[in-house]
């Protein structure tokens, strides 16, 4: 049997992996909201984390995981409705989700730096 690792297969497992990563990442969201509700000290703590290099990597990764999972999910919704199963469409949809997630992540971060001045 010839077996070839395809892009759709890779994207399937990446969809799961990003989903699991986002699951853990909700702790960061909860921490951020609770810190804002707690006061300036707690808020300074999470800002200290998110502005550290490791925090930046985590939040950048989180941004990509979120966008990738969302675009991959929209692709699944198209498939759920019964469209996009042709050999060309399914490859096109898969590439669009992957390229789209990377492009949007970069755009979001450029806008974030422009708006927030890197804070």
């Amino acid at each position: 049997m010839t077996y070839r690792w395809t892009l759709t297969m890779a994207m399937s497992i990446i969809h799961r992996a990003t989903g699991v990563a986002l699951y853990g990442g909700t702790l960061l969201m909860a921490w951020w909201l609770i810190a804002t509700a707690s006061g300036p000290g707690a808020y300074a703590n999470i800002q200290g984390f998110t502005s550290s290099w490791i925090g930046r990597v985590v939040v950048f990764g989180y941004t990509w995981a979120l966008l990738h999972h969302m675009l991959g999910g929209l692709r699944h919704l198209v498939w759920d409705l019964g469209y996009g199963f042709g050999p060309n469409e399914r490859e096109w949809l898969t590439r669009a989700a992957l390229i789209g997630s990377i492009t949007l992540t970069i755009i979001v971060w450029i806008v974030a730096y422009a708006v927030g001045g890197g804070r």
Partner: protein
Amino acid sequence: MSTKTSIRTPLNRVRGLGSAHHGTSDFFRQRLTAIAMALLFIPVIVIIMSLLGRNQAGAAAILGSPLVAIVMILFIIASVWHMKIGMQVVLEDYVTDEKTKLAAIIANNFFSAAVGLASIYAIIKLSSGV
């Protein structure tokens, strides 16, 4: 499908809604919450962008304003519900030991509920200004 003959009709089996007796409700809710988050995504991104570069008082004022708080609470409900279902599917696929699987599914429910309630509590606290 079993090859054994059964006196139960296909309709009767369908009414039982499968072995978990929940039918396709999780499948549907997974997509329902996905659509909700897709619709709320741009407002949530705008909210997060508006918080960048602000101090705690500024961020608290924005997150506590009614429209922002409602959008955030809706997004949190959709998120934790979606992730609870998604994680349960992953656990059911990969955890083979029944007791471990049950424990993991219970932990998944607790985690999702705790994260969701903690986040919603924080937003309500910001909205009520106490």
